[in-house]
């Protein structure tokens, strides 16, 4: 089969599953619903695997396919097509494999839910949209996938649509993403205007010629065109990949069922922004300013969102803030031109974070939908598989040497260290101290949930038991991936894997320096045990152990000391307050004012009814003249006649 056919199978199989289950669900049993959708996604995974194999044969030479013309206006042509290279195929495998795990897991997680079939339809639709996004060969289709994953995310966050918090969270997610898309669309428009094309290949070919072009913002302000384009595109990524200050929707998105938290809000959709920037590396490499901006936004997200994770008590919220922080790490990597490392962290993170979410889901099922970690404890005895897999996920997340997160995160920190961008020095300290923060909140979560004395009634504790196989098998598979995924570092990062799909300018030689320091996986692990990061990691683990296991009274004792940081962190720096009380109210306020003042008073009151009133008023006055008395008319005639005569007399 040709690669194009395989691509079509990859995208259409999940779409087919989604449409069939979505439209004809009424006539299908639950088993039919999950078999059809799982079949579709499994087929997509197999097809992606075959594409990977075929690309391997040709050493990952990029392949460009056009599927159909969306619209053509003169010489400006907008098409739908696929660009298949190592970057795409990595994303395809991550998306389809995690999606498959989540589909299987859902059978267990959602089995009591009345919306069972609808849920399967949505997650298959998501898989389709995400694949369209990553496989696109042009900005139009990218934007389609971009918005379509946003739509499915909206539908899934609000899946339990009777909950007020869920339907607030979903509109919030959509609107915050739209703020990002505002920038994204302007970036796309700028590209279209300056290159007369939206096809990646043509745009990338034209980009170097635009280095000296400027864009007029105001008469006195001109900015380099490429800087504008890159920052505008990145604003889109800030929405989708939840970077400060557009991150506020992601923690709230935890209102959705846990499987989608794993799939959409951890492993795949939120990494779309990271993918997009890596895909656009030929553009971003041309703007130092944009890269600097990206690096700082990423560092701020990585550091400050990690801090918030330390004070969360909801099991999913902790993992959500951890996701924000890890996305920050990926963004930092993009900023220092280590695109391949960003994608590599995206890929390892997809497995261990999906694992952590699904494990959290497993705990939530066992606890009968209790999510407060203060009411858990000692679960390791009751749920050995969830416990063991969580441990693996946690070790991967904190970057313990030899686990997958170690390879990707350690490399990012090293890349920042080697970067020559102004300010990289500060960013290095931020991402390095992030290791301590990550270790602390991860182990805090782990100890509170699985160790210590159970902080629940004995009866509840006695009812807790391991979850069924459909839940644990995906956990085990993802746990295996979380261990082994990191070992791909040698071919992926230091081989030619991304050579044809990621472009790095020779001025940004971070990765070359990295390659000089790299002496094989074994050496990297050995070095990992003596690196600064490892001591910070141990410190974080030790502190968590001390505070939450050894002497659980410490946090309470220290509370008065940390009252101010705690106040700030539990309020998440006040972003929500600003957005909801500030911007949202302001928007509705403007609307009300415009409606009342502009439309009702000024236009309708003054202009429309005002005109009517003037006409009415004038006619009322004029009416008085028509009294009907003959002598008044006669008098008026005489006066008039006299007037006219006088006029003509003096004229002559």
């Amino acid at each position, binding site marked *: 089969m040709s690669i194009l056919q395989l691509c079509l199978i990859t995208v259409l199989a999940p779409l087919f599953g989604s449409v069939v289950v979505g439209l004809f669900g009424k006539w299908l049993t639950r088993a039919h619903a999950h078999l059809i959708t799982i079949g579709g996604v499994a087929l997509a995974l197999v097809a992606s695997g075959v594409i990977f194999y075929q690309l391997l044969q040709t050493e990952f030479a990029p392949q460009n396919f056009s599927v159909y013309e969306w619209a053509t206006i003169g010489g400006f042509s907008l098409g739908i097509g696929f660009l298949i290279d190592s970057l795409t195929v990595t994303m395809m495998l991550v998306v389809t494999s995690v999606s498959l795990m989540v589909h299987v897991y859902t059978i267990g997680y959602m089995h009591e839910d009345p919306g069972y079939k609808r849920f399967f339809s949505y997650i298959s639709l998501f898989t389709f949209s995400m694949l369209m996004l990553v496989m696109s060969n042009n900005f139009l289709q990218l934007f389609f996938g971009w918005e379509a994953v946003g739509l499915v995310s909206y539908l899934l966050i609000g899946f339990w649509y009777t909950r007020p918090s869920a339907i607030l969270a979903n509109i919030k997610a959509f609107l915050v993403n739209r703020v990002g898309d505002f920038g994204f669309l302007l970036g*796309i428009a700028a590209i279209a205007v300056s290159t007369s094309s939206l096809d990646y290949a043509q745009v990338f070919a034209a980009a170097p010629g635009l280095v000296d072009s400027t864009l007029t913002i105001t008469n006195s302000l001109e900015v380099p065109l490429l800087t504008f384009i890159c920052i505008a595109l990145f604003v889109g990524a800030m929405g989708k990949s939840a970077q400060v200050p557009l991150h506020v929707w992601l923690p709230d998105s935890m209102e959705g069922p846990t499987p989608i938290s794993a799939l959409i809000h951890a492993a795949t959709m939120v990494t779309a922004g990271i993918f997009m920037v890596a895909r656009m590396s030929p553009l971003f490499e041309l703007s130092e300013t944009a890269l600097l901006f990206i690096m700082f936004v990423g560092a701020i997200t990585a550091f400050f969102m990690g801090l918030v994770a330390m004070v969360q008590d909801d099991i999913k919220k902790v993992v959500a803030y951890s996701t924000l922080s890890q996305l920050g790490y990926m963004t930092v990597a993009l900023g220092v031109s280590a695109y391949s490392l960003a994608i590599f962290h995206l890929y390892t993170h997809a497995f261990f974070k999906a694992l952590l979410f699904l494990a959290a889901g497993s705990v939530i099922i066992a606890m009968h939908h209790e999510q407060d970690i203060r009411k858990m404890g000692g679960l390791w005895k009751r749920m050995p598989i969830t416990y063991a897999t969580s441990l693996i996920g946690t070790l991967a997340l904190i970057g313990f040497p030899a686990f997958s997160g170690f390879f990707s995160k350690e490399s990012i920190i090293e890349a920042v260290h080697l970067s020559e961008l102004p300010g990289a020095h500060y960013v290095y300290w931020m991402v390095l101290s992030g290791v301590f923060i990550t270790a602390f909140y991860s182990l805090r979560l782990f100890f509170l949930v699985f160790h210590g004395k159970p902080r629940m009634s004995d009866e509840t504790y006695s009812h807790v038991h391991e979850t069924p196989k459909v839940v644990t098998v995906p956990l085990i598979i993802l746990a295996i991936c979380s261990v082994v995924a990191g070992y791909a570092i040698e071919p992926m990062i230091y081989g030619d894997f991304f050579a044809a799909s990621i472009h790095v300018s020779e001025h940004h030689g971070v990765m070359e320096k990295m390659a000089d320091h790299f002496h094989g996986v074994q050496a990297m692990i050995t070095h990992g045990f003596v690196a600064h990061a490892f001591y910070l990691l141990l410190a974080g683990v030790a502190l968590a152990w001390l505070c939450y296991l050894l002497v659980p009274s410490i946090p309470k004792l220290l509370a008065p000391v940390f009252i101010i940081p705690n106040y700030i962190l539990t309020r998440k720096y006040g972003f929500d307050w600003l957005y909801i009380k500030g911007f949202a109210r302001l928007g509705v306020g403007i609307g009300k004012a415009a409606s009342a003042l502009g439309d009702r008073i000024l236009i309708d009151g003054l202009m429309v009814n005002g005109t009517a009133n003037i006409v009415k008023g004038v006619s009322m006055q004029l009416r008085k003249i028509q009294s009907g008395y003959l002598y008044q008319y006669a008098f008026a005639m005489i006066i008039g006649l006299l007037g006219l005569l006088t006029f003509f007399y003096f004229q002559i």
Partner: protein
Amino acid sequence: MDIPILSLLIWMPVFAAILIMLMGREIGEGMKWFALVVSIAEMILAVLLISKSHISSQMQFVEKHSWIESFDIYYALGADAISITLIALTVFMTLLVVIASWTNIKHQIHNYLAAFLLLEGLMVGVFCALDAMLFYVFFEAMLIPMFLIIGIWGGPRRVYATIKFFLYTFFGSVFMLIALLYLYSQTNTFEIAQLSGAAIPLNVQIPIFLAFLIAFAVKVPMWPVHTWLPDAHVEAPTGGSVILAAIMLKIGGYGFLRFNLPITPDASRELDWLLIAMSLIAIVYIGFVALAQKDMKKLIAYSSIAHMGFVTLGFFVIYQISAGNTDFQMLALQGGMVQMISHGFISGALFLCVGVLYNRMHSRNIDDYQGVVNSMPVFSALMVLFAMANSGLPGTSGFVGEFMVIVASFDASLWYAALAAITLIVGAAYSLWLVKRVIFGEVLNDSVAALQDVTTREFSILIILALMVIALGVWPAPLVEYLQPSLERVLNLALVTKV
């Protein structure tokens, strides 16, 4: 000899309407079947029209007969792709309205449908008149059936709404009449094609342009002459709202394409800033106004005004796009045109959705609803789709026109594109906030709990519109390609200088 297909399209429903009104007294409501047959026949004729047309910039199916010889007024009809597309939209939406009204209108349904048939014929006339006087006659006559529809079958404040509607539009068209008479005095012709070619000095073009502007801006409607629309919509019966939003507003946009751009191109170039400013105000300011509405129909009415802002922006931004960048000028025109078609489907669908709820609850008040999805899941799925289309989701038709216009305006100015792109946020805010309050949430009260989901008839209408919205969003190429030569001709006329 070929059948005069355009004349048939105009006069068949008009005569059918007269017949229904005359015979309705004896036969009664059974005449609604006759109305249905006529609207189906119209649909067949429209399909025939499309299939017999060829992709070309020229007027096709031309009919020309002398009408008032002493003033050189002709009964001249003809259609290019722009006309044919809008005629097809008219006929299609009328058919849906006839079906949608089937059991919902309790009072004299045959006369109600007759009014729609009359309206249909006259609107088709507007879209294919080649003589300005003939255009004017249809343009004015069209008001009468709509006046009756709102005035007889409308809500409690229908008298205020109809008078406002009538005065506004009548006020606008008087200026058009003056402009046409003046043009005749200068050129001795009422033929639109000849007027488009006639040399007119700039100082004459400007007042003519302004007169046309008043006439069409009221119709679109553009800010600040828009306030009649929310009132008219609120009082109009569902069918009236659908036709008003889906077709009648388009006549304003069509007028700009046929009169302002080709007849007064230099004035259009001179005053493009005015139109662009009005369009951007419509998009941004009206978007915020929509956010504050408590009545579903008002909200959709304001949303219509904001969306029509993209049409006028697309049409007039062509003058500020770098000269010689024909592709992007075409992109702007195409965007405006596609937006008109798409808005026809989406706003029509949204008004039908409100109609579905109104028939059950007799309220358009957003606060009277909550949690409709619990009792009406199928309806809710469709309404969410249309709300998403309304907020310009890619893959739906709502995206296509907005995307084209935003991209094209970026060439003119970053600020035009940025202001227009605010719709991405505000449009989503009012559409989804509506959905949040009406569709989602706990069931508000017993009457919401007792709601019945859509009937087969309602479902069929909405699903057809849903398919159109998705088809146009996924593959706009056929429409764009079909419109291309005709719009190119408009562009050439608009860019020529006549001074």
